[in-house]
């Protein structure tokens, strides 16, 4: 996984935005989401209003709604304490690997341990990498282009998420809108592009069904 370099980049970004290393690792412990941490760091760096920053964090977290809905029937039998723990640990990778496993036949009783195992492992690697990035800061030469790991980390999630014609429409429209709206302040392009992409996907899906 790109977890380690991505975490490092997120740690560097937090400190680069003017946060202390303690604040950088605190953001990582609270949010535990690479893209949310990066977007928050970018917006803190340009002193955006709190509500705008949190709106951006919400938009990049919208995909968690879909993961949460897909996982909920599999976790419904667990205690609240287990569900809170797995909720905190749920990331793109945990969802991707966990859902694959839930599709398999066989004993379902211990699968939450499997999710927990993936989640806590990624969590430990992630926090250690963010800490390293926040402390070492920008000592990695810019020529290494380590920040490209962020784009690639989402690219490897995007490719399997695009299966139908409607998915393609959602991705293409969102991508094009993100470029067209790039001039908007406070990374609002992310909000606009995401909504436009979702609308395009729904429109193609409905037309297709009729």
């Amino acid at each position, binding site marked *: *996984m*790109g977890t380690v370099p991505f975490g490092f980049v997120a740690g560097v970004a937090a400190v680069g935005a*003017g*946060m202390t290393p303690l*604040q950088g690792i*605190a953001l990582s*412990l*609270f*949010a*535990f*989401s690479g893209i*949310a941490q990066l977007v*928050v760091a970018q917006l*803190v760096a340009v002193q955006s209003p*709190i509500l705008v*920053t*949190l709106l951006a*964090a*919400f938009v*990049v*977290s*919208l*995909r*968690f*709604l*879909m993961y*949460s*809905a897909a*996982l*909920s029937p599999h976790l419904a039998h667990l205690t609240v304490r287990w*569900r809170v723990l797995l*909720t*905190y640990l*749920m990331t793109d990778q945990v969802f991707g690997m966990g859902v694959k496993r839930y599709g398999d036949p066989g004993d379902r009783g211990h699968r939450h341990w499997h999710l927990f195992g993936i989640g806590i492992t990624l969590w430990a690697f992630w926090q250690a990498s963010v800490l390293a990035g926040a402390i070492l800061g920008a000592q990695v030469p810019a020529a290494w282009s380590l920040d*490209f790991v962020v*784009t*690639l*980390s*989402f*690219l*490897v*999630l*995007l490719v*399997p*998420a695009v299966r139908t014609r*409607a*998915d393609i429409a*959602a*991705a293409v429209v*969102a*991508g094009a809108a*993100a*470029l067209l709206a*790039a001039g908007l302040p406070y990374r609002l392009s992310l909000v606009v*592009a*995401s*909504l436009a992409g*979702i609308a395009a*996907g*729904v429109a193609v899906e409905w037309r297709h069904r009729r």
Partner: protein
Amino acid sequence: MNDSLVWLVIVGSGVVTFLTRASFILFADPHKFPHGFRVALAFVPPAVLAAIVIPGLVSPAGGIDFSLANPRWIAGLVAIGVAMRVRNALASILAGMAALWILQALAR
């Protein structure tokens, strides 16, 4: 930015990410929501992920750049090609980084 405001943003980000994760696992039954909502939910990952990825490939420095001076979109195509063939995230990421480094070295 004022220090206590930064802490507010940090805690607020934790609340926002936790609540979106918790939405259906802890609070709601997705089947009680209208069908249209669930249809829209299915398009969130391709839309949000593309809104993050496409500018990272095509517009790394602001402005749309499909020229050879921007090796990132070519490296991205390499990574997409690998991702479509093998279900291995690490292989795609490594291929994309390797392609970027090679293109950067060639341009020098």
